[in-house]
């Protein structure tokens, strides 16, 4: 325990469970000598919901609404991982039109997640007005998502073998209206980040992760890509139609806080590029496979027995579901492997030896989501 190790002229500072920096309640206990962090530990479990147990007691279709709530910023990639598991177990082929719609909504979700994460981060390092800029663009992106799925945050949009609804009429025009503004805004954020001396002083060379250490700690997503490792499930293990789409994996070399934000900026541009390609390439056709028992309205369905691990690229990294089916209408066991779990775990080694003022700058740059760690 941290308390037992406190030496002379040392003290323990608790951050949280309620703190403006934290995306949800968790506690960071830091042992300080002067202003330097000697040691720290993370305490979790303040919002443990038992989602894995709940899923065992719900039918497969009911589970979709539950996995939405694992992380409110990445509801659609959680659904994709869950629905993908069931589709693999039952051998359901998703029609191409539905696959394209899924890519569109998931990339929109990545866009809004990064916009919020980046804006929030700027406010952690004392750049509060930035949050107001990004939240404005995020609202436009959320309206686009809302027009497809009918909800802003928890969508419950994917179904086994397809999606709930088709794209609304005029969606392409909406995208053409919104995206130029978002692009312009992202350019201006980048400009601000590049030129602001205070921001750079707080981020460049701070919280550096090297590629080897990042791999050892098991982090994925933007924090890993910022160290130069091109690890992206969309490329390494393509799901949906990502194989047919042209996009690049955004990486940076430095591995510091600045690089993590830069990766997110670049990824937002790639997401918009992907969505525009999808809208150009999307074929006409049915949303659900024909002649299968699995459709939009199939409340009770039995899935063949088996085990499967399906993973997708969440805005924050590798999101995987391990599902065990025993042939009944409810899953026997579901394991949710969230991307933030190893990222948050990696905070104590990352914070060793930094100054107190940098704790928030480093912890915030990992873009964590407590709700997903606790589940």
């Amino acid at each position: 325990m941290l308390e037992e190790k406190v030496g002379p002229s040392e003290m323990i500072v608790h951050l949280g469970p309620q703190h403006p920096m934290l995306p949800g309640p968790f506690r960071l206990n830091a042992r300080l000598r002067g202003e330097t962090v000697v040691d720290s530990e993370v305490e979790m479990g303040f919002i443990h919901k038992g989602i894995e147990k709940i899923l065992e007691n719900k039918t497969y279709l009911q589970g979709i609404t539950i996995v939405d709530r694992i992380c409110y910023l990445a509801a659609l990639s959680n659904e994709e991982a869950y629905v993908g598991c069931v589709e693999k177990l039952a051998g359901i082929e998703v029609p191409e039109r539905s696959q394209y719609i899924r890519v569109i909504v998931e990339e929109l979700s990545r866009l809004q997640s990064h916009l919020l994460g980046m804006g929030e981060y700027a406010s952690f390092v004392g750049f509060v007005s930035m949050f107001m800029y990004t939240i404005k663009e995020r609202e436009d992106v959320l309206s686009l998502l809302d027009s497809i799925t009918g909800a802003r945050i928890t969508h419950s949009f994917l179904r086994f073998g397809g999606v709930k609804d088709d794209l609304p009429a005029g969606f392409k025009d909406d995208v053409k209206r919104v995206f130029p503004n978002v692009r312009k805004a992202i350019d201006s954020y980048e400009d601000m980040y590049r030129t602001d001396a205070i921001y750079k002083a707080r981020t460049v060379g701070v919280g550096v992760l090297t590629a080897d250490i990042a791999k050892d700690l098991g982090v994925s997503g933007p924090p890993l890509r910022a160290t130069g490792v091109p690890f992206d499930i969309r490329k390494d293990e393509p799901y949906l139609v990502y194989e047919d789409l042209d996009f690049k994996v955004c990486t940076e070399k430095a591995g510091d806080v600045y690089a993590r934000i830069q990766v997110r900026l670049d990824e937002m541009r790639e997401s918009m590029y992907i969505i525009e390609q999808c809208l150009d390439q999307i074929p006409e056709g049915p949303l659900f496979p024909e002649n299968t028992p699995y459709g939009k309205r199939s409340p009770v369905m039995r899935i063949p027995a088996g085990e499967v691990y399906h993973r997708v690229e969440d805005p924050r990294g590798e999101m995987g579901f391990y599902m065990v089916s025993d042939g009944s209408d409810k899953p026997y066991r579901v394991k949710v492997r969230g991307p933030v779990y190893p990222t948050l775990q990696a905070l104590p080694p990352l914070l060793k030896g930094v100054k107190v003022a940098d704790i928030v700058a480093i912890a915030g740059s990992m873009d964590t989501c407590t709700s997903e760690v606790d589940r």
Partner: protein
Amino acid sequence: MDANSIIDSLYSQFPDDIYDTDVESDIRVVAKVKSENITNVCRYLKENLSFGHLSCEFGIDYPDRGEIQVLYVIGSYEHPVVLTLKADLPRDDPQIESVVPVYWNANWYERETYELFGVKFIDHPDLKPLVLPEEMLGEWPLRKDYKGFPNKTAKNLV
């Protein structure tokens, strides 16, 4: 590195410890492993077959077989194969060696498996509950026979 050569390499190195292997597809391999040697198998996987990315580690309860299974889903940064290692433990006294010396991020996964299933990880650096309160230790909520935590709120005690 493809799925079949991984299985062959594992078999030749640990002929007595690996059994029931299955190549599900080009990128999914399943193998059962004897629980005594899990750390050595993991170390070999990491150092020789570039399985450097522990995706997750968790338990599954099988009360009718009297077993708790601990699963290790291990991926790689170099090749796309994902390997699932399964270790069967007796349900009345589940114990297995910790893999934290090999995979640093197994720490929290093992703490969670401990508090939810009661699997004891030998030589784990700090085996204590992660997401549950201390007083729930011994309830093992993710086991199939868990009936709900006794409600000890004031209303129910009166």
